[in-house]
């Protein structure tokens, strides 16, 4: 485990330079370390950025880690794995990694805009196309750099590229396949998604259940407010804090559970 992680932090450096320029190399790291190690490595880089370089917010750190190091990296990696099962040989590896790199950037951008819209800062139908289109362009650079670096390493030290990772057993390849397919579909359809809510609303209005549907998926605290607490600002803040603790608790519990179920197949 730890040789794996130590190698991981070394892989970080090219990434650390890249993340500032919004190229994050998650797929590059994932090809060497597997998705778990790459996610950890990228999360470290993000933390250093926000604490030491102040190039990212502390309160947005969770969202950043989710977008870039979890969604971007694992999503891109599964795309890579999926394409890799079709494309054999070194050329296939490079092509698959390029595609994975592109998707990882676009996916993270889409996730970021959805989060921004959910927080009520900006409107989804405005931010999503902008973010996805700009990052589709940035993603091309990411794809080329991922492919170029991998091509070089493949030529010089092909033994560094481990195709079988201890963290991705053979059984989960099917899951990865499905996940990759879903992400690919989502990624391709996202640019068109902005027109959907309107359609949904139209249908909802036609059928006459528009008022009820808001109550259905709103959080327990409507407008981030606990109704019984006064003054109002305290209510808002309390709701915020409770929400943060809740999400943290869920994540923590999930991590503990995953770790326990992982420990019997642990490879040191």
């Amino acid at each position: 485990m730890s040789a794996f992680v130590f190698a991981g932090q070394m892989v970080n450096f090219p990434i650390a330079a890249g993340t500032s320029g919004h190229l994050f190399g998650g797929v590059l790291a994932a090809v060497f370390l597997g998705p778990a190690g790459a996610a950890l490595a990228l999360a470290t880089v993000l933390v250093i950025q926000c604490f030491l370089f102040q190039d990212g917010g502390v309160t947005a750190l969770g969202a950043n880690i989710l977008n870039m190091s979890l969604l971007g990296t694992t999503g891109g990696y599964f795309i890579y794995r999926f394409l890799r099962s079709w494309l054999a040989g070194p050329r296939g590896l490079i092509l698959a990694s390029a595609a994975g790199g592109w998707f990882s950037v676009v996916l993270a951008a889409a996730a970021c805009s959805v989060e921004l819209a959910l927080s009520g800062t900006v409107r989804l139908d405005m931010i999503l196309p902008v973010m996805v289109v700009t990052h589709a362009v940035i993603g091309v650079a990411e794809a080329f750099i991922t492919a170029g670096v991998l091509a070089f390493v493949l030529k010089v030290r092909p033994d560094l590229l481990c195709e079988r990772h201890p963290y991705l057993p053979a059984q989960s390849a099917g899951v990865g396949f499905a996940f990759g397919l879903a992400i690919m579909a989502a990624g391709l359809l996202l640019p068109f998604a902005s027109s959907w809510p309107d359609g949904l609303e139209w249908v909802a209005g036609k059928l006459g259940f528009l008022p009820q549907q808001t109550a259905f998926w709103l959080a327990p605290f409507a407008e981030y407010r606990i109704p019984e607490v006064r003054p109002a600002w305290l209510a808002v803040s309390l709701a915020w804090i409770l929400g943060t603790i809740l999400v943290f608790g869920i994540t923590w519990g999930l991590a503990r559970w995953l770790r326990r179920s992982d420990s019997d197949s642990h490879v040191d």
Partner: protein
Amino acid sequence: MWTNQRPRAGTGHKVCDSRPAGCILSAVGGVFAVNLLPNYLWPWQIAVALLLVTLSLKWHYPFRKLGQRLLVLGPFLGLLAVGVLWQPDWPLRVVNLCGKAILSLWIMSLLIHLVAVDEFVAGLRRLRVPRIWVELLAFLLRYFTVLSEEWQRMQLARQARTFRRRKRMEFRILTNALGSLFIRAYERAERLHGAMLARGYKTG
């Protein structure tokens, strides 16, 4: 760029020397507090700013650094502010967005000004951050400068070989250089890990 030297060398203040964990906690708490302020209570941000000015003056925080950071932040903030313009109560939102972003950045920048690198890592340890992750962070911090110097050396060596780049080859040169930095980093990590094991480092 941030270096391995103690950032506060020469200024002589010892605020966070013995309690880095407390400093980290209060900084993070401060950032959360600033961001938790509801939008209509924006005048309180001025109070926070005044407090920060006082602390910065007391601890000799270089304001130029804040300016540099703000220059980096500016474009992103501007982009987001433009996105907010379509909301009905946009003046309030823009004021809050900019104010909170600047204050948060200031707090973090002040924290790094006060806490040296090794103390920062020690503080995280004290706060019971998982060990493997603290180690990861410490190594990344330690070797960041080493590898960025290696990168500069590689560039210098290439120029010394009277290397002239052609426009067409530029991209291939960049990726090959990155790839070889990658391989060197990987090999260094393996050597280092072997050395640590030989000196009794326990895994996991």
